[in-house]
């Protein structure tokens, strides 16, 4: 079945089985392995990508359901010219990752949060990432990273 999808502003056409999940289209067909494939049960959030501008868990979306839509993955966070997104900078500075497995999902959800809410409280940050599981950090440094990114972006205007 034909799937036409725009990923990070680039158009792709692929013929796939209807049962192919979006996470596997991104990783196996398009080679975009930044999106991680974790629990496969829509719990852990490692596979979170934006589908038509909102984060969704791509292990629970069929690739054919995304046809005609635009997808943004962690590879699309980087700005033109290779400049990292402020969230990526802040995660690095504040040790917001250890093994890095949950990081793509954390980043995509956090980007969505800060786009809508530039000055979130810690409670709002924790609520926003409550669908993302991290087994290394205990979340403290992730919350700190997101807060740091928010403060940096507000300071930069």
């Amino acid at each position, binding site marked *: *079945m034909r799937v036409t999808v725009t990923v990070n502003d680039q158009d792709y056409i692929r013929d796939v089985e209807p049962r192919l999940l979006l996470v596997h289209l991104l990783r196996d067909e398009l080679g975009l392995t930044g999106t991680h494939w974790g629990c*496969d*049960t*829509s*719990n852990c959030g490692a596979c979170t990508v934006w589908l038509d501008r909102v*984060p969704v868990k791509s292990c*629970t979306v069929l690739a*054919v*359901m995304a046809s005609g839509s635009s997808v943004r993955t962690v590879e699309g966070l980087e700005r033109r010219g290779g400049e990292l997104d402020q969230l990526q900078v802040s995660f690095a500075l504040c040790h917001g990752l250890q093994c890095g497995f949950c990081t793509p999902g954390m980043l995509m959800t956090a980007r969505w949060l800060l786009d809508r809410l530039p000055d979130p409280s810690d409670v709002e940050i924790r609520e926003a990432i409550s*669908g993302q599981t991290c087994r290394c950090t205990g979340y403290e440094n992730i919350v700190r990273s997101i807060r740091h990114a928010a403060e940096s972006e507000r300071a930069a205007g």
Partner: protein
Amino acid sequence: MQVPAHFEYQRATSVEDAIALLERYGPESRIVAGGHSLIPMMKLRLAQPELLVDINGLADLGGISLAGDVLRIGAMVRHAELLASVTAGTHFPLLHDAERVIADPVVRNRGTVGGSVCQADPSEDLSAAFTALRATAVIEGSAGVRRVPMREFFHGPYQTAVGPAEVLVELQIPLSNSATLAGSSSAYLKVDRRAGDWAVAAAAAVLRIDRDSVVTEVGIGLTAVGARQFAAVEAEDFLRGRQLTGEHIAEAGDIAAQHCSPVADQRGPVDYKRHLAGELARRALHAAAARADLAIIGRL
């Protein structure tokens, strides 16, 4: 790797088209909305449809709006949209209470109200909420549109009144218990083991009291404790017509606990769940009463 078995996929172009596809392919065809119940079931082979009919593009099934004396919620409304709806929250605060504790924000971006209700999982939150609100399900098939009261909608775990070639179009909630009316409000309370988990137990309460604090309307819904049609009918019958006092609310909670049938599982034993059913019904009634009339709190 968990991947569903083979199936065919079609996008419906209208509700009529969806019904025609379901009729043509027979009972092995299924509608997919947000897919957050069905796709996991398909990965585990608990569901193995031969055809998926995708209704995500159907604008007719979207939207939250006031229409006459009801609030209508389209079947394709995402959980996040219901949680963000000022209209829904103003009239029925329990809808926002419930949505806040359904899964997590990312899942709520995709999962739908209609999909949740049609999945009819005994632990699903909106089923008890709509039951307490006495909502009506609007179901369309080739023979026309049927209206089924929520209290006749659930035929058992994972079974509903929606036939194999029918589509749930929307849910309608009567505005007669709107929180905008004096003496009327609602609340939903849930106990879960961790953020985003299914309920160990939860309770929904809808209340309307008159100037003398007599209960004129009451709806009590229970989640995950084996209540018939998710309703605590005996507790409702006890409270209706009685003065809203702390003692009467406590007794209503006891009655709700007595009449439900929880089963023991990894979320807890029967006596704990029964205790929660009673306690959460009490607390939900108190919360609804507090919202309905701040003056009454001192007397409860």
